[in-house]
């Protein structure tokens, strides 16, 4: 016999109104606690307090961000493609031919710092269940990673663990990893960013709802048993600042003891269980056995029950002692707060419970009926017959809303005035060559194979493009060639200089990356990584970034379908750069017409065309960062109309088959784009610069390294030059031939030449030298 943990009951709470409760320790303010008491008309029980504390945490309630996020829906451009928008587990987009796609990106930053492998692994697991809960089969993942300085000791602890966790969980789950990002900056030293994206595909009719409707319907918890792992993960880890020193490598390393103390709050993943859960859910959906479904993520059973009840008929009765446990000593508060992984909750008609349990048994998935749907507007929970929770579910699901003070940071003016125009620039061939190699070998731009080789990009057999391409591209239908493209982008430096413009640049780059595969961008997801919302300067950045995103999406004609906010990304009082990471989804009409970034050798040689306009824009550039450690001035100007025209041209040119390759210009400008296209295709090129060109270039340095937006290089299929020019004119995209593909070096005529071998060596050696 196991001893039953005595619980704080509703009756006892009514009889002991003065009993002090640890609401501050659970992250609730005195006002929030008072609001709970007011709602209930008594003090909450221990279980209720646990439930409200996690539901009202920043991570779950969006209490500081909600007032801003509303404009993402309010300003969203009209889109016929949107089947389900913001507010669901993930947005759902119609891609035609009866298919729908759902995708979302989410942060797992704080757990990944405390315990890199499990933190990153369970980040993948969590976002996969979000997609699964929509009714879709998850088909791919991506990840956007940001760490402190590449050479820092703590980065060598965190990065291999994070990559290993993503590799282990994603590979074992059988999802191809088709892209993402890797960048380094001192601002992430004590607070790495681990953002995971998942995409799923379904038929239109397969959409599932997260609602507990139909009184008498049974509530089934299935998947892993509930343990003590991750208790309060959302409230303890993701909704507060890590203490400890800031800045130097030594300080970051000495943060480890503080991190160790939080380790019990990190969840532990079991990708095999998740694989079974995926197959089990898809079989349950196909058999029509599910009325409503919700994944268990942050705030576990507390969140799943309150959200299902609040969205459904209005009530639910739960027997907490029926929850299968892997640690018998857990009581109601722990069961409600546990973030044990690989769990789902379904609402099932009573007559179909037997069939439901049989499917679970086939897949060796544990399942237990733990309650039923009611229509009394109350969420009640019992523990061995005694009532321990009795609340109106909407009161927990909706939570408080704050409009926190926001004010432009005091250092913003000085930052904007520190123009990179004052930095010394290379003016001769040797200097330009050295700058290119320095950039190409810098950790943020170097070959990422050390990371991406650890991910399976082949599984499921539909991966058409993956890293290091501009975007990932998946085939959805083998007979028609219909496919989807995805890209994520973030740029903390641009956003630090101007969060409104920076966020638009980030959106535009993801949009351009998708377009560069030949796909048409359709929809947007976002993961907003910021410092503490209690800091007015951070709140100012957040407000500007959300406005920038909403306005940018309106200008580009792509709606935001969902996303995630991660606050408290700071160490002590120092926040990370504001780092919104934006994911863009596009549809490709025929993946056989995809465009790769790689140049291809051939006779006659293909010409290289630079599309877009180049100005001298170096604020927040890779050149300023890598060569001078400089961050200041203004970021490049977003050119959203030009982005739209460029994307239209690329889609049309891909469909017509007039292009051989396309690569967007971003970090490091034309120089890096040329180098990457040469390396990908293992062939050189000869490019002519200002001495022989009229037009926008003012000097070779600007031509090579400026980061002006809305640009790409393409190579034109020999013989199709006139057809491409006609398309370019029709789409009103400026462009000029800047060279030809061929040879075994990257040659910039009259300035410098780099052998492919040297280029490849410089590109390849950086990450292995750092991480082994």
């Amino acid at each position, binding site marked *: 016999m196991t001893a039953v943990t005595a619980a704080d009951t509703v009756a006892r709470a009514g009889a002991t109104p003065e009993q002090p409760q640890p609401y501050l320790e659970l992250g609730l303010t005195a006002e929030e606690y008072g609001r709970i008491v007011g709602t209930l008309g008594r003090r909450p029980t221990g279980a209720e307090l646990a439930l409200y504390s996690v539901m009202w945490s920043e991570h779950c309630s969006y209490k500081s961000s909600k007032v801003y996020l509303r404009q993402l829906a309010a300003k969203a451009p009209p889109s016929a493609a949107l089947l389900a928008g913001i507010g669901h587990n993930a947005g759902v987009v119609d891609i035609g031919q009866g298919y729908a796609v759902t995708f979302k990106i989410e942060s797992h930053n704080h757990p990944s710092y405390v315990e890199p492998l499990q933190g990153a692994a369970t980040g993948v697991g969590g976002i996969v269940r979000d997609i699964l809960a929509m009714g879709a089969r998850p088909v791919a993942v991506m990840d956007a990673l940001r760490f402190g300085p590449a050479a820092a000791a703590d980065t060598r602890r965190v990065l291999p663990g994070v990559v*290993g966790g993503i*590799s*282990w969980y994603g*590979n*074992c*789950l*059988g999802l191809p990893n088709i892209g993402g990002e890797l960048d380094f900056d001192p601002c992430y030293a004590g607070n790495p960013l681990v953002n995971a994206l998942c995409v799923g595909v379904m038929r239109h009719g397969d959409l599932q709802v997260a609602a507990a409707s139909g009184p008498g319907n049974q509530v089934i918890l299935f998947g892993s048993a509930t343990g003590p792992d991750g208790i309060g993960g959302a409230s303890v880890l993701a909704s507060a600042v890590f203490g400890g020193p800031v800045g130097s490598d030594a300080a970051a390393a000495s943060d480890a003891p503080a991190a160790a103390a939080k380790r019990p709050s990190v969840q532990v993943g*079991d*990708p*095999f*269980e998740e*694989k*079974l859960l995926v197959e089990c859910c898809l079989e349950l959906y196909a058999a029509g056995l599910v009325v409503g479904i919700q994944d268990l993520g942050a705030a576990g059973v507390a969140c799943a029950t309150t959200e299902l009840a609040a969205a459904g008929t209005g009530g639910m009765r739960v027997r907490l002692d029926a929850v299968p446990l892997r640690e018998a000593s857990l009581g109601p508060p722990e069961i409600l707060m546990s973030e044990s992984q690989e769990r789902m909750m379904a609402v099932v008609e009573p007559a179909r419970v037997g069939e439901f349990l049989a499917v679970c048994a086939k*897949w*060796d998935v544990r399942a237990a009926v733990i309650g039923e749907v009611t229509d009394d507007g109350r969420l009640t929970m019992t523990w061995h017959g005694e009532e321990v929770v009795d609340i109106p579910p909407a009161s927990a699901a909706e939570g408080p809303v704050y409009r926190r003070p926001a004010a432009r940071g005091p250092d913003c003016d000085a930052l904007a005035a520190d123009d990179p125009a004052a930095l010394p620039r290379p003016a001769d061939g040797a200097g330009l060559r050295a700058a290119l190699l320095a950039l190409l070998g810098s950790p943020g731009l170097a070959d990422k194979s050390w990371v*991406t*080789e*650890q*991910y*399976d*990009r*082949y*599984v*499921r*057999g*539909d*991966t*058409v493009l993956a890293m290091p391409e501009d975007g990932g591209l998946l*085939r959805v239908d083998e007979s028609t060639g219909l496919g989807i493209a995805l890209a994520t982008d973030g740029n903390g430096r641009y956003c630090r200089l101007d969060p409104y413009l920076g966020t638009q640049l980030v959106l535009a780059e993801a949009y351009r990356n998708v377009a560069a595969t030949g796909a048409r961008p359709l929809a947007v997801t976002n993961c907003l990584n910021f410092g503490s919302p209690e800091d007015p300067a951070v709140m100012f950045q957040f407000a500007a970034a959300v406005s920038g995103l909403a306005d940018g999406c309106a200008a580009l004609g792509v709606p935001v379908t969902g996303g995630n906010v991660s606050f408290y990304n700071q160490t002590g009082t120092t926040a990370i750069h504001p780092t919104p990471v934006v994911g863009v989804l596009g549809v490709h009409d025929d*993946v*056989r017409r995809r465009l790769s970034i790689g140049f291809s050798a051939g006779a006659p040689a293909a010409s290289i065309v630079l599309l877009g306009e180049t100005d001298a824009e170096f604020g927040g550039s890779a050149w300023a960062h890598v060569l001078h450690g400089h961050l200041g001035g203004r970021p490049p100007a977003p050119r959203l109309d030009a982005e739209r025209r460029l994307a239209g041209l690329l889609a049309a040119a891909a469909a017509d088959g007039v292009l051989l390759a396309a690569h967007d210009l971003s970090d490091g400008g034309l120089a890096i784009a040329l180098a990457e296209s040469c390396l990908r295709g293992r062939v050189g090129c000869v490019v002519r610069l200002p001495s022989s060109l009229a037009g926008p270039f003012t000097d070779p340095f600007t031509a090579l390294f400026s980061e002006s937006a809305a640009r790409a290089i393409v190579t034109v299929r020999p013989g199709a030059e006139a057809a491409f020019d006609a398309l370019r004119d029709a789409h009103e995209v400026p462009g000029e031939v800047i060279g030809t593909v061929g040879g075994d070096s990257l040659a910039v005529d009259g300035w410098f030449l780099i052998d492919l071998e040297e280029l490849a060596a410089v590109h390849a050696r950086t990450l292995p030298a750092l991480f082994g």
Partner: protein
Amino acid sequence: MRIGVITFPGSLDDRDAARAVRVAGGEPVPLWHGDRDLRGVDAVILPGGFSYGDYLRCGAIARFAPVMGELTAAAGAGLPVLGICNGFQILCEAHLLPGALTRNAGLRFVTRDLRLRVENERTAWTSAYRRGEQIVVPLKSGEGAYVADPGTLADLEASGRVVIRYAEDNPNGSAAAIAGVCNAEGNVVGLMPHPEHAVSSLTGPSADGLGFFASVIAAGVLG
């Protein structure tokens, strides 16, 4: 030609193996780990993945699946059997093939398109290739280092049972760069690289992997 593809809990490349069979002109037949039934198929593929999570030694639990009893008997009677990656590991654990697969030399999972050399074209699964032919096929595994005792290795080499070898890069540190082996009769073949991911240049590095599936189908048609 009906070719069974076994799904164990945690199998991942079963769908890809079935597609490869289809592309090569065969009919894939799903087989379930819990059934003691091969459904009358003409050949069987054990696909890649992480059976039972591979939390114990890779393949160590899957070898006890009910379907493996039938498979072992049928393999003994000459049924063509191909184990890919986790399937190779299972065949080794089941002693249908000699040796074992251990952690990669670099201790990290490696996904890489590799040049392989076909060393034995007389097996049920490699007859479509020429001896010495080089093919490009992806490898993706964390425990792909082939090991065996010196006597077994010498025996494998002497009897021509090394079927596939890494031609240039040996990224997991396999003994003698061995990527795949067969049993004495040549009907059971296991390899770590994934030919089912090289059936089209759209979704793989080449279509070089098709030969494995075409081999067994051609033999079935002729036989």
